[in-house]
């Protein structure tokens, strides 16, 4: 035990001496320490040997030649510095915050686009499937209904008569009796009287029915359908009051034109027949609607006024011209 302690102390002492010897050869000792070491070396052969070993080790390492840096090292360093500076001053390709904001914006735009598309689709589906309240429907067989797009009527009724004054009086009375005074603008130009009538379909039909009495005094009666689609207007010569009502009763311009052409052809054919008559036998009398006639209930009773405010699509714009032959 004691011998082990002695060996340990000896090693520690040797290490300490070595440290001093290293410091001695490195010139790191004070002058007093150097004198002490020199004295120790002179009197202790082992210490001198250790010093020699340490000196040789130091000299051996120190004998390694100094190496110079490779040529162009400065350029390499400066280039590396410039490259790093350029890379550091370049804006970041990916900004995580900007990316998140961009992603959020994209999600918002996508959601808005989806909502818009759904809305458009809903409108389209609703337009197709939902009933249109503004479109009138007429009963066809009591159960089913068919939607029709009605159009305003535009036409001109030209009546030629030798008895202009009487016909004017009848017409004026008819207008008054139907309560259409406010719907008619009357003017007299060059001996012909013009009545611009704008009223409901029922009102127009009632007025025409009231005028049927003057038809026997007429020399000619022509109904001209004003069209925008066709190149020229469609005229029905020797037209009767019933025919006028029949044409007005149609909802669309095409239907009116079809009927007008049919009636014009029938009237022309009737005129060619031996017993020419202003009231030709209609080929299809069943389709002539019943005219709304005023009902007289007494001396003081006024006829039923069927004129009502005209709705869009049911408006009749009829110009009645009374002239002499």
């Amino acid at each position, binding site marked *: 035990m004691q011998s082990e302690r002695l060996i340990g102390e000896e090693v520690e002492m040797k290490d300490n001496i070595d440290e001093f010897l290293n410091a001695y050869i490195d010139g790191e000792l004070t002058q007093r320490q150097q004198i002490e070491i020199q004295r120790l070396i002179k009197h202790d052969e082992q210490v001198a040997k250790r010093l020699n070993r340490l000196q040789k080790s130091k000299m051996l390492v120190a004998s*390694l030649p100094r190496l110079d840096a490779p040529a162009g090292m400065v350029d390499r360093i400066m280039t590396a510095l410039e490259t790093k500076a350029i890379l550091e001053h370049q804006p970041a390709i990916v900004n995580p915050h900007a990316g998140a904001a961009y992603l959020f914006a994209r999600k918002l735009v996508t959601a808005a686009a989806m909502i818009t598309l759904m809305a458009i689709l809903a409108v389209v589906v609703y337009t197709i499937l939902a009933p249109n309240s503004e479109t009138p429907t007429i009963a066809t067989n009591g159960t089913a209904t068919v939607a029709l797009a009605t159009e305003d009527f535009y036409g001109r009724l030209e009546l030629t008569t030798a008895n202009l004054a009487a016909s004017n009086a009848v017409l004026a009375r008819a207008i008054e009796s139907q309560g259409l005074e406010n719907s008619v603008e009357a003017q007299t130009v060059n001996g012909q009287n013009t009545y611009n009538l704008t009223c409901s379909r029922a009102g127009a039909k009632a007025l025409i029915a009231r005028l049927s009495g003057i038809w026997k005094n007429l020399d000619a009666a022509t109904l001209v359908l004003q069209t925008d689609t066709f190149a020229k207007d469609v005229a029905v010569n020797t037209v009767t009051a019933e025919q006028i009502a029949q044409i007005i009763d149609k909802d669309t311009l095409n239907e009116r034109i079809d009927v007008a052409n049919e009636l014009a052809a029938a009237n022309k054919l009737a005129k060619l027949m031996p017993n020419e008559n202003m009231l030709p036998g209609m080929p299809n009398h069943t389709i002539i609607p019943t005219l709304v006639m005023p009902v007289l209930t007494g001396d003081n009773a006024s006829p039923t006024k069927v004129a009502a405010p005209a709705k869009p699509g049911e408006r009749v714009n009829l110009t009645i011209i009374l002239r002499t032959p």
Partner: protein
Amino acid sequence: MNEAASIRIDDAVLVQRCRKGDSEATERLILRYQNRVYNIIYRMCGNADDAAELTQDTFVKVIENIDRFAGNSTFYTWVFRIAVNLTLNFCQRRSKVAYHSIDVEQHDQNWQATALLKKFLSNETSPDPALVAQNHELLRLLQETLAELDEPHRAVIVLRDIEQMTYEQIAKVLNLQMGTVKSRLNRARCNLRDLLEKRLK
């Protein structure tokens, strides 16, 4: 002492100019220390390419961080601290220092180098460093032996015996106490001696 003081002042001026973006001052600082930095890095890592790369990295780091140099130590010490730290980290990452293997043709030269080393280390002869410096094979053998030391011992022995730093400078570069420097240097030299003698056997 006067020379050292003038170098330090000169360094301080160059550092100031370098901080202001003077590329000429930067180049002068690099030129002043590049060889010494390269040399100690090479002796520590043992490979020329790695040493060049590490030297470049050292100066890039020095220039980039020159504003942080507070002047508490000399610029020289600061540069070497960066160089040694980079090299020690590099050596630690690398599992083994790569050296050229000794091929068969070199056996004769190796034998001569070993004989010369044996003669040099023997107690009967007085040291003659000139003989060692002339024998390239012995130098290579010495470099290999140096590389066998662990990094802390290799660093302290390179800084002292090759770079000729004082103990105080070594302490600053390696961030050690003076006593640690002394004991570590002693242990490093003893280990190197043991490794060399092992080669002779």
